[in-house]
């Protein structure tokens, strides 16, 4: 069967232990999480988790059912069937010197990223986007020497109502 990435969004109660419950579930059942992002929703008692999980349709079905089974999980959506927007925020520290700095700045501008720290031998760049954009950006910067990458993990929201 086809392994692919699935974007799952879960509304959960904003209580201690909920994150642990979900990560325990994934670990115990051997599901692979690519990323997991959590934050409060418009209602402070409820958080939204965006989970990127890899697997075939059968695994996806089990993940959705198992998440729904947890008492603290209110609702689970899988986004592949709905139009939605995904964003990941990345901070990337790249080596830079007098000679190549302007080249890097050019790339940054094309990608509409921001330079958030400037040091004599490196730059820190902030960029938001979907998976493809971030991967392309990393690939372009690789030749200069990437020192560190930090990402928030993907968050997703459905389009329209």
């Amino acid at each position, binding site marked *: 069967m086809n392994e692919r990435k699935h974007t799952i969004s879960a509304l959960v*109660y904003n209580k*201690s*232990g909920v994150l*642990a*419950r979900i990560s*325990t*579930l994934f670990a*115990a059942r051997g599901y692979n999480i690519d990323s997991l992002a959590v934050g409060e929703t418009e209602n402070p008692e409820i958080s939204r988790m965006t989970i990127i999980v890899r697997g075939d349709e*059968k695994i996806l*079905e*089990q993940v959705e*059912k*198992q998440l*729904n*089974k947890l*008492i*603290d*999980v*209110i*609702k689970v959506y899988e986004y592949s069937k709905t139009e939605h927007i995904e964003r990941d925020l990345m901070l990337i520290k790249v080596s830079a010197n007098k000679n190549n700095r302007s080249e890097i700045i050019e790339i940054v501008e094309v990608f509409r990223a921001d330079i958030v720290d400037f040091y004599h031998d490196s730059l820190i760049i902030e960029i938001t986007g979907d998976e493809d954009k971030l991967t392309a950006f990393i690939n372009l910067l690789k030749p200069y020497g990437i020192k560190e990458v930090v990402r928030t993990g993907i968050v997703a929201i459905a389009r329209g109502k």
Partner: protein
Amino acid sequence: MSMEKNDKSLNELTGSEIFVKSLEMEGVEIMFGIPGGQVLPIFDKLYDSKIRFILTRHEQGAAHMAEGYARATGKVGVCLSTSGPGATNLVTGIANAYMDSIPIVAFTGQVPTHLIGNDAFQEADITGITRPVTKHNYLVKDVKDLARTIREAFYIAKTGRPGPVLVDIPSDVQRAKTEFIWPQEVEIISYKPSYKGHPGQIKKLAQVINESNQPVLYVGGGVVSSNASDELIELATKCNIPVTTTLMALGSFPPENELSLGMLGMHGSAYANKAIQQADLVISLGARFDDRCTGKLSAFAPKAKHIAHVDIDPTSISKNIVADIPVVGDCKLVLQDLLKEVKPKKHTEWLNQIKKLKEEFPLKYSNDDKLRPQFVVEEISRLTRGEAIVVTEVGQHQMWSAQFYKPARARKFISSGGLGTMGFGFPAGIGAKFGKQKEKVIVIAGDGSFQMNIQELATASINKVNVIVCILNNSFLGMVRQWQQLFYNKRYSQVQLCSHSHDPKKCPIPDFVKITQAYGGEGFRVTEKNEVASVLKEAFKIKNKPVVIDFIVEDEENVFPMVPAGASLDEIMINLA
């Protein structure tokens, strides 16, 4: 001003008072456990309560007793321990209840909230430890949440797919005061089990049943927990569908009925397994296609045009075997709806085929003069007419019990299925007896398993609990020995329980008769086949104390038939040859 304050504090109760009141509101009659430092306030209140408290000799025993009570009665079992080691000792029992979907609520004391996370004396993160083996668990940090949490815990344990719930209560919360407010209703918006099956799916299922020629019902514990035996019997007899059950569901269909195939799977009857392999329709009711039942998944029921799966838990459906007719719902309600849609059928040809299979591959063992373990079980079945509650430990004796004890009804056969916990049976039997005082409770044990919670003989004696333990003593960890014989060239590695002899006179460690007497019970030893019935009858007359019968059985007897692990049901071994 001061009046008002007084009035308010008059209405306030401590956490431990709220605990006891809440349990009384839930109708708890009995609970099992052991006290300790972090539950002293609760035990102080229990001192004045009408709830019967059974002091066990090990917390594992308490958890299994709660489960045995729950299984025999259909009510929620309750156990209580202190923090740290008391709580960790409950874990095996909780995990056992989780695997078999049995409703228990386990309460644990915890160190005071300000010490949590400090590695305080007897602190254990028990909600963390039990997260993978509970349906849900709670750490109550504020006394205001206590009553509602207890209400929710019982509700979650017994509704939907039942299971264990743990509530961890720090000792300062037990002492803190608040007004006691008992919620009339439980409203958890994220927890709404669906009980009614989808009408469209039920119609579809009825249609394939009406069209099938070789259907088999494959029945699991869900039928027991939803008390759906009557509906099952009605469906099977109306449409003449043979019924095979899992270990968990033995008794839910009358074993003497000609439609009964007994248990399927690794040590199931050959005719049950062969019937599954020939079926054109498999209807699973409250079973979960466990690997011990299905054998090699890809070769399971190869001729089935349809696999239907009725289960209250959506995660069970299509987890192992893809069901093309899934019905999410409570077995009893789904069966009631289904019965309106199915047409009576005779299935004469199919039933003839089944009859031939039964004649060709009966469950059997050597009928010689030796004291064979299967014979002991058959005698128990014959003398009790399947009316006793039989509780088993884990091992060969468990499988012989499943094969040869004929429980007359559901909840008459109790065994550790999913986890396969040695040490479960004896305390679970005690718990069952507390729940069903008028019924005979017989524990069928191995000499290995019984020693895992043998200390509960004290609990049984002191509380005058008449449980009859029949040890099928082979001086081996028999089931492991069997695997070593069959798959490891008879290299018996660490399975001898007596180092030099099977003769109890030469190796009396322990002497089960003497140890029972020392604990205040009555002990017997049986070495000859012709003594079995008379000793059982004598033992059945004893009241108000535990009885242990040490049956010295053939030591290298094997459980057959057997489907080797990972093999398909077709590869069933009927015997050694």
